[in-house]
Every structure is written in C-alpha cells, then in structure tokens.
C-alpha cells in the first residue's frame, strides 16, 4: 500500500468536507470533478463523512468531567442508587467549561441526556433545560444566552431597554416579553413562542413571531414559519411529546434528547408524518415504532427505527 498516496487523498477529502459544509453550487461542481479524477477518492470521502457523522457532541466533553462521571458511577454501588443519581445530576448540571466560552464571565450550564434542570437568569427570568442541552450564560450580562446544543424554554421578563437575546450559531432570537422554546439539534433550529413574541434574526432578515407561532430552520438555512399548540411546545417538561403530522425525523430528535440515547430513522422513513403523543419512558422508541408498523432495533448504544425486514442478512 502506498501510505503517502492514501494520506494525500485523505487530506484532500478532508479539505473538501470542510469546504462543502458551507459550500455553494460551484464548490459542489468542483467536488464532482475531483471525485471523477480518481475512483479511490469517493471511498476516502466516505471515510471522512462517516467518521464526522459518528462524532457526537459528547466526544467534546472535557475529559475531567468524563472521569468524574465515570468514577461516580463505578463506585455507585456503594451508594443508594437514588442518592448517586441525584448527586450526578447535581454535578453535571454545574459543570463549567470556561475554555469553550467566549468571555471571562461566560460559563456553561449543561444537562446530561435524560435530565432536566432550571437555571435562574437574574431579574426574575429563568430557563428550563431539556436533556443533552448546553447553554452558555454570562455573569455580567443576564440578558444574554447562547444555546450550544439541545432544547430549552426561556421565560423572560421584558425590558425594552435591554432586550434578552439568545444566539444559536448564526440564529438569533430576541424576546419582546416572552416565554419561548428553542431547539438546536443536528443542524435543525426551532423557535416556538408560548407567550408574548420574539424577533428571529439570521443574517439581518428579522422575522417577528407571536405566541403559537413556530419557526424551523435547517442547516441550509431555509426558515419555515408554522403554527403549534403552545401547550405541546413544552410537553418535554411533562414527559409527554405531542405531534401533528410531524416528520418522524423530528420525533426521533426529540426522543434522543429526552431519553439520552441516539434514535436514528431509516432514511426512507424520515419524512413519514407522525400524529399522536409519545410518553417519554424506556418503551418510548419501541412503542412509537410498533404504532407505525415499524420495528425498532438497538444497535450499539443507539436505536434504529426501520421497516420490518423481510430478508434478514
């Protein structure tokens, strides 16, 4: 094997992967020409794209935090289960990781998958975090929050002189006296306004949203405004997720966050509309699948919802 050649192709594949993340049509056209130049390039690109896809935000967790959790669970037997769980929850909720926050006064509030937590924002405002959520707050600026990943409901006291702003990547949501729910998950960004109103902004195009309105944007930046029952928007806080004709992919993302396991959907089923409600418990995935006439399969530490196979390999 020519080690050097393999390495070069890999470096090129990585460069393409990086370039295409925010690539335009011309980048993709050029990518096609690169692929056509050597049949080995497509497989090299697969290795990069699939390795990247397998990368979860947990892999970025500070190792110290991991060790702490690890130790806690391995000695957990000596403790009453409930006590250990409560302690872990408390610790995880308070882990601060200053190296990934921008300013000296920024700190991170995080929950592990499956956990909920409420954090005060000062001046009577507060935020409720769903599982697998990371939020950056600022000690000096109670009117700022950054949703790094996950889902959170903000209950914000309105102050026209100091509007409350949440950023999530290049999405920006500014309150106008409000309770609103945000989801940032695998390139999907969703705003749901429960009370009052907010202004959504991305790249200078301001969109006002009133109570009962939702806005969804995907990675390519297509924002879609819709409508939802405000009660259903915060169902995760009560362990109940309700949907009307929601793509199965969305349901899976919500379940992943609440259950703490990856729930994947067969690509052909991602757009399958689901109407109904799901109770968040350990049977949630299998119940959902069987209600749709599908099967749920556990692979490693994740679930896959797929059609019943007729010819198993």
């Amino acid at each position, binding site marked *: 094997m020519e080690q050097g050649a393999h390495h070069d192709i890999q470096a090129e594949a990585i460069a393409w992967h990086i370039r295409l993340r925010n690539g335009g049509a011309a980048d993709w056209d050029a990518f096609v020409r690169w*692929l056509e130049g050597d049949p080995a390039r497509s497989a090299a690109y697969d290795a990069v794209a699939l390795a990247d896809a397998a990368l979860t935000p947990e892999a970025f967790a500070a190792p110290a935090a991991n060790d702490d959790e690890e130790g806690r669970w391995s000695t957990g037997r000596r403790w009453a289960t409930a006590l250990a769980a409560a302690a872990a929850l408390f610790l995880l909720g308070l882990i601060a990781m200053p190296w990934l926050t921008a300013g000296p006064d920024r700190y991170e509030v995080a929950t592990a998958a499956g956990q909920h937590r409420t954090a005060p924002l000062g001046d009577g405002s507060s935020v409720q975090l769903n599982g697998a959520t990371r939020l950056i707050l600022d000690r000096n600026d109670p009117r700022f929050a950054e949703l790094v990943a996950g889902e959170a409901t903000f209950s914000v006291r309105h102050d026209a002189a100091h509007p409350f702003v949440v950023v999530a990547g290049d999405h920006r949501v500014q309150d106008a006296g409000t309770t609103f729910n945000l989801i940032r998950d695998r390139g999907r960004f969703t705003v749901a306004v429960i009370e009052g109103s907010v202004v959504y902004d991305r790249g200078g195009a301001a*969109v006002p949203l009133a109570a009962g309105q939702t806005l969804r944007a995907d990675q390519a930046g297509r924002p879609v*405004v819709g409508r939802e029952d405000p009660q259903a928007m915060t169902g995760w806080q009560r362990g109940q997720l309700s949907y009307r004709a929601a793509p199965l992919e969305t349901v899976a993302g919500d379940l992943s966050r609440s259950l703490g396991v990856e729930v994947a959907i067969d690509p052909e089923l991602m*757009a399958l509309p689901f109407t109904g409600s799901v109770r968040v418990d350990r049977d949630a995935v299998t119940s959902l699948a069987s209600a749709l006439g599908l099967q749920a399969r556990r692979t490693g530490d994740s679930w896959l919802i797929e059609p019943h196979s007729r010819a198993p390999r």
Partner: protein
Amino acid sequence: MSAINRDPDKAIGGLRAALLETRPALLRFLLARRVPPEEAEDILQDLFVKLESDPAGPVAEPRAYLYRMAENLLLDRRRSAGRRTGREEAWATAQLGATREADDRPSAEQILIARERLSLVSDALAALPERTRLVFRRFRIDGVPQREIAAELGISLSAVEKHLQKAYQVVVETQARLDADVPHPQRL
C-alpha cells in the same frame, strides 16, 4: 411580514423546478460517488419525495441545497446499507398505540463497547492542542462558519483550515482504528 413567510407551495415549486434542472448534475455527482445507476435513480426519487413532503421556505442556493440533500441521502444509505430490503410500503399516519415489542435493550457488553468508543474519540480530541480543539468545536458543534471563527480568534482563514484539517485527521484515523479493532457487521 418578511419573505420567509410566503406561500410554501411557491417555494417548494421553486425547489422542484430546480431539481428538474439540476437532475443531470446530481446524477453525475451520485455516479462519481460510486453509487450504482439504479440506486442513484432511487436516491433522486427519494429526494423528490422529500421535497414534496417537507414544505419549505425559499432557499438561497437551491443547487447547492440539492447537492447537500443528495449527499445526505447517500450517506444515510451507506450507514444503514444492507439493513433494508424494500421501500415499496406506503406508510400512513398512525396514532400511537399501546403495543409493545420484546425488550431488546443492549447488553452490558455493548454499552461498554460504545462507551469505550466514545472515550477513545474524546481522548483523541482532548489530546489536540487547545486552539485546534476550540476551532474544531466552533466549526463542528457550534456550526460557526470558518470566516467567523477566523475573526473571533484573530487568525487567518488558512490557519483555521489547518486546525480543522488536523482535527479531522485525528477523527478519521481514530474511527478507522476503531473499525479495524471491532469489526462492524453493518459496514458496507
């Protein structure tokens, strides 16, 4: 209100028109990605269905958007290759019932393997220089474009790219090692 709130039918019509126009280029792309011709047609069909079933707002760059969709569909297939036999079923909207399937939670061993994989990847990332890790995290997890990362850290665009190249090399190589150690039956 803004243009974002306009009739989704019109927007999706625009994408559909773009798909017809871009179809030959997408087919060429899929073939260059080594997809067999019949499967390439399937993917384009899926793409069309996805556009129909997921009404969307206007897209800044429909052509790039469609390339991305095709690539995502292709990757999803590569990931779950061999796990599917047919796709002719029409799946209707269903209400959640009370039926339950047999318990097939993972064995303790599987959980340990998964944990070990995760910890190997996160160790590899933790071993990167702090600056590289920060750039990678901003790009990959926070979704910040390279230009913005460069501005944030006061470094050049090519420096950002070098950090990303290095981080991705570690990720790809760690993954390759893991795949070699633990043969994965679902690999293509």
